[in-house]
């Protein structure tokens, strides 16, 4: 930046023969623009601080959630025992009447603090025994807090965490009393139990699922024949006969599989643990019902890292359980990525082709201006409106028609005639297509005229010029539009709630059954998962860590998708760099 200083001006004055009188030149601050600069810089820093503060908060909470925390055993003055992970402490104001009702020493202490009392939230678990997962403990009531090394933190498949001790374990019928968390026999038995659980799941989900699928196909064949040829037709009769014939072996197979699952279950029944909470209340459950257990106050660093990583792995690779507040988010990750990619696949060609036509081929006139303004305005329509449109037009309109033509035999159960992955992706494509159109048009118009003329002068046709010169040159700009569309689409939740996102999807949109990719299925989405876990679950305190971790993950996924696109773009850009004249 060059600024004219008073010296320069004086020099100019000296040089000029006209300057008879010396003017005293002062340049006011306003003219130099510094206050404006400070304001701009200030605004920028406020913006950056807000964004980074938010990200920092999310990442801090997200990445600390899975750290194994110590478990405190608090003895209250009343003699009651509270065991749990200290989650957070805060000051809260007691009602004046409540203060008066306290013992004089406590009351004086609280008065001294201006009526505030310190309290700590403990994650006590044991919901099935006590009826709560979290408990506030006021400091004045605490007699003693300890961190005994034999207290266990147990994660269970059902009922959430358990804090206490293992009283006894039955391993293949043999009883081991008061084993430690690292007792090799117990650890081994636990691993075996988890494998059994996996085996049962495999039988029930995959093998029995296959049988059910085949049975359903037979039933649908009959239905199809009845619909096509009439219920009394020979074709329908043949289909019915075929069903009877083929379903026999299938049923037999089903019985076999069910028996096998039952056998494994019975082994499972013989492997149990008896847990006791800190006060001695007991609960017996199968060993396979434990996800993970550890002596929370007796962990080496390696143990902690192991727990941390295994929790992340569980989070990333398994299905949710306990109303989504525990377990993993694999289906939601899958749904988010699949839907975003599908959306990009649909929005990119449509948006680019539209923009190409508008900018390169359409006669520039009033009609094109109107179209352009309308497209720009589409970007401002509230997204929920797109959701309503997507449900009404895509799912109920288009989807129902598809059902009536191709999936008549399944009715009244809708196949395409309800929310699903494809409709969600289409709705979001509709929502984001203005972004791509606007960015592409901009990129196209930024291609220098001289370059088009060069190509045309070589005898290239208009299409060859667009294909060989204009599009490659505009590609980075087009990619920017697609990146923006992707970022907008991946973060959108409201319209998805109407067109296919569900709290818990029974199956992934990809499986082993023909046609393998089921775009009509409803799916899970990280954005909706956050809403559901954070604000729709039984206990918002229990869902809170999940909200942070899931948010981290969503931000991470969007970042990865965008980074991939940005890398592609910078590759393209590098090809056109180095221009010099």
């Amino acid at each position: 930046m060059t600024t004219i200083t008073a010296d320069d001006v004086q020099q100019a004055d000296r040089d000029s023969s006209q300057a008879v009188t010396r003017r005293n030149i002062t340049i006011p601050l306003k003219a130099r623009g510094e206050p404006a600069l400070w304001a701009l810089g200030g605004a920028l820093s406020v913006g950056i601080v807000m964004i980074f503060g938010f990200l920092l908060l999310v990442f801090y909470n997200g990445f600390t959630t899975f750290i194994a925390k110590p478990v405190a055993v608090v003895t209250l003055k009343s003699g009651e025992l509270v065991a749990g992970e200290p989650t957070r402490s805060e000051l809260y104001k007691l009602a004046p009447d409540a203060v008066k009702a306290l013992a004089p020493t406590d009351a004086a202490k609280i008065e001294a603090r201006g009526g505030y009392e310190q309290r700590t939230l403990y994650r006590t678990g044991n919901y099935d025994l006590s009826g709560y997962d979290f408990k506030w403990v006021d400091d004045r009531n605490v007699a003693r807090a300890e961190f005994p090394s034999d207290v266990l933190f147990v994660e269970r498949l059902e009922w959430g965490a358990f804090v206490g001790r293992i009283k006894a374990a039955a391993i293949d019928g043999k009883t081991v009393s008061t084993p430690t968390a690292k007792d090799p026999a117990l650890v081994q038995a636990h691993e075996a139990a988890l494998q059994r659980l996996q085996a049962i799941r495999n039988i029930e989900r995959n093998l029995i699922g296959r049988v059910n699928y085949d049975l359903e196909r037979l039933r649908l064949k009959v239905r199809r024949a009845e619909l096509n040829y009439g219920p009394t037709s020979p074709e329908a009769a043949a289909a019915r006969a075929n069903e009877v014939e083929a379903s026999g072996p299938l049923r037999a197979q089903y019985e076999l599989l069910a028996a096998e699952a039952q056998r494994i279950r019975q082994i499972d029944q013989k492997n149990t643990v008896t847990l006791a909470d800190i006060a001695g209340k007991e609960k017996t459950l199968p060993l396979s019902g434990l996800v993970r257990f550890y002596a929370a106050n007796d962990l080496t660093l390696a143990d902690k890292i192991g727990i941390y990583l295994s929790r992340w792995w569980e989070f990333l690779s398994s299905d949710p359980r306990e109303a989504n507040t525990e377990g993993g988010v694999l289906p939601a990750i899958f749904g988010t990525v699949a839907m975003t990619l599908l959306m990009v696949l649909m929005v990119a060609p449509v948006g680019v082709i539209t923009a190409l036509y508008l900018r390169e081929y359409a006669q520039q006139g009033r009609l094109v201006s109107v179209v352009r303004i309308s497209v720009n305005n589409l970007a401002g329509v509230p997204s929920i409106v797109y959701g309503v449109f997507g449900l009404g037009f895509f799912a109920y309109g288009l989807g129902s028609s598809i059902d009536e033509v191709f999936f008549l035999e399944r009715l009244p159960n809708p196949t395409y005639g309800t929310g699903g992955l494809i409709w969600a992706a289409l709705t979001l494509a509709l929502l984001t297509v203005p972004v791509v159109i606007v960015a592409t048009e901009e990129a196209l118009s930024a291609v220098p005229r001289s370059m088009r003329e060069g190509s045309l002068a070589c005898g290239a046709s208009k299409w060859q010029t667009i294909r060989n010169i204009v599009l490659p040159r505009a590609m980075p700009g087009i990619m920017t539009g697609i990146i923006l569309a992707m970022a907008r689409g991946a973060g959108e939740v409201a319209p998805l709630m109407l067109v296919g996102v569900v709290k818990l999807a029974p199956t992934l949109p990809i499986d082993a059954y023909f046609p393998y990719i089921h775009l009509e299925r409803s799916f899970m989405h990280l954005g909706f998962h956050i809403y559901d876990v954070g604000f729709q679950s039984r206990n918002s305190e229990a869902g809170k860590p999940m909200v942070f971790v899931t948010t981290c993950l969503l931000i991470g996924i969007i970042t990865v998708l965008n980074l991939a696109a940005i890398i592609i773009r910078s590759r393209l850009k590098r090809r056109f760099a180095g221009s010099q004249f």
Partner: protein
Amino acid sequence: MKVAMTDAAPPVAAAFGPPSVHPKRGTDGEAIRIRDFNLWYGKAQALYDVNFTIERGLVTALIGPSGCGKSTLLRCFNRMNDLIDNLRIEGRIEFEGGDIYASTVDTIALRKQMGMVFQKPNPFPMSVFENVVYPLRIDGIRDRKVLDETCYKALQGAALWNEVKDRLHASALGLSGGQQQRLCIARAIAGDPEVLLMDEPCSALDPIATAKIEELIDELRERYTVVIVTHNMQQAARVSDNTAFMYLGRLIEYGETETIFNNPLNVRTQDYVTGRFG
């Protein structure tokens, strides 16, 4: 057409009178013939009643002060002006006997016969090689041997081969401005056109590159018909056989370069070529 002209003619028209066209010198024929050509950008007329003939195998220079319509006329020869909205023309331009503005003319085929070099270098964002063979690529030629040979010949012709032979597959945008301009010339001759249209090809170049390009034009003389727009009187005198002087959208004088520069008939031409105005 003449009749339509009179009411739109500006006062200067009378002052100039009809263009002074010198007697034709013996060549092997006419390449481009411009007849009663008028052109309007919207309501503003840019060319008035232009009449002259560009001869095959010679270098013809278009000179005249800025804004007199040299580029406009040049861009009419390969119909580059088609891209401009609200453009209106009257009159004829004939190329090899056919009216190039006839509705049956295929502009793509026309442009393949007329290479064009622009005032500012406009290489494509591709490798040097791909830039040169672009006219062949769009014709769907894939034969490596043909491409390589064309590339070599065109770059040799544009006096660029020695400078870029080791970086044929590097981006053309990495070349210097002068090299880029010669690359554009190579691209224009790679398509093997019959006419080469050059719009101030040396305006962005240093004297050495300019000399190289003038040398090139000298070499091209036999095989191509060259039309060159230039502001540089010495250049026009050095490279061209014929010179057309334009002023305010009119052709003022057209003839052999030597005559135009030494014995112009029109006083305006004399003033311009001797540097007294313009």
